């Protein structure tokens, strides 16, 4: 009998308790999307671009003699900072990453690198690293484009690179002098989509 009473009182307690609501701070509500992984490029559709990276060997697989460049995710990775062409600086590390394996956090600890305005035209004092570090997942299309322009310039400036653009052409793209195929479009959204397709997924 006692046991039955105990059970009944437990059930009563269960019914009476509301599911607690989670408190959410306004500061935690900033981004509708935390992170976006963009679709891999059309040129990589045959699935071998990573294999080319693995081999460390460029190839003539795509039509013409160009090869895919690296995307902003690659260039932001501190593990590859020594691969930045010597005319551009990645920056210096002010501290350790937080150990969660998130490269985004690690690159955020660097500062003092080459500024966007010292590579491209205009007065933008944000560093190149800053753009590849967080810009490719930004919801601001202008910021996203700059991230990919930085990546394109680093690709084009890499010694012995077979990237589709020269460094001079990337600068002309950014300045709005050069357009992208097929209609020589200078629309930022079209330029961004094209640049993505010139890079490894």
């Amino acid at each position: 009998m006692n046991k039955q009473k105990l059970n009944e009182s437990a059930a009563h307690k269960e019914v009476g308790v509301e599911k607690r609501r989670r408190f959410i701070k306004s500061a935690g509500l900033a981004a509708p999307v935390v992170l976006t992984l963009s679709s891999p490029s059309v040129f990589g559709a045959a699935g071998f671009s990573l294999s080319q990276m693995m081999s460390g060997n460029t190839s003539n697989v795509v039509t013409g003699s160009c090869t895919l460049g690296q995307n902003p995710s690659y260039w932001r990775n501190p593990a590859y900072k020594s691969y930045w062409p010597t005319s551009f600086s990645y920056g210096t590390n002010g501290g350790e990453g937080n150990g969660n394996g998130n490269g985004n956090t690690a690159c955020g600890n660097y500062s003092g690198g080459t500024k966007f305005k010292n590579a491209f035209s205009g007065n933008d004092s944000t560093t190149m690293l800053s753009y590849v570090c967080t810009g490719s997942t930004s919801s601001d299309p202008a910021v996203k484009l700059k991230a990919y322009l930085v990546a394109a310039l680093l690709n084009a400036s890499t010694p012995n690179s077979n990237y589709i653009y020269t460094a001079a052409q990337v600068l002309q793209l950014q300045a709005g002098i050069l357009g992208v195929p097929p209609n020589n479009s200078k629309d930022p959204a079209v330029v961004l989509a094209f640049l993505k397709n010139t890079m490894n997924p």
Partner: protein
Amino acid sequence: MKLETLSKKTVFRALNSDGLRFTIGGFNVCLSSSVPAVAEHLLSLYGAFDVLDNTAFIDFYTALEPPSKLRRFFRPQVNFSFDGYFPFKPLPYKQASAMFEWGLNWCIASHSHQYLIIHASVVVRNRKAFIFPGVPGSGKSTLCAALVSRGWRLLSDEMTLLSVSDGCVYPLPRPISLKNRSIDVIQEFAPDAVMGSIVKNTAKGSIGHVRPPDNSVAQYNTPAQPAKLIFPKYDKDSNTVLTTLSKSRALLKVTENCFNYNILGVKGFNSLSNLIDVSDCYDFKYSNLEEAVALFTDLAH
């Protein structure tokens, strides 16, 4: 019949004529080559693999040859072909054995879309598959070689083959590729490991390959259930730290390490999501191999 039962002369003759035919994981390969180093590489590292007769269906007809007669003597080079198609630019002749491995990676990554292919090592203990995705330099192959030397079953060093239909990981127990300092590390950690010739001055530095254990090769037809997805990062100053990773973030991270995710589309997304469903996900930082092996052996119980 195992490759190691063939005489050196027989292997050379086969490579120089119609090609040597053998099974690698679930793939049948025919390789032709006049390069002696290639024959040495096969004899040293592929001894436990089954040789096929001329009637067997072949998945990949491959060849490793100098691009022209002149290139045999003047700044000698070698080139890899698949069905007569050359996916790469030639490499120095001395890198022929490494080029065979890279060429085979390319063949499998480009033509095996019955699998979601992850750039990851995968090893098995107590029937649990531990998958270690990683960019070059993450230390996944060093970890893989260390675990395998301590009795773990090798499923694959470079490419994890996740079946789109049943969610299991299918074996591809090929030689484990080590670079630069990792070669010395593993030679010290596992002095009994059989290593092929070191190829120097590649785009990645020095490359050496560790022979896969015979019993791993023998189980090439036995898939495994994924259990752990662990993103390693070697850091010489790091303690051994295993940190739980949220499944959502693990999904995005592993997606970045897939070869053919974009080809598979929603099937690829669902395959990876199912993998995440059944796996515990972690980030892993380490500098000490013994500690790493002990931790994972414990985790496998």
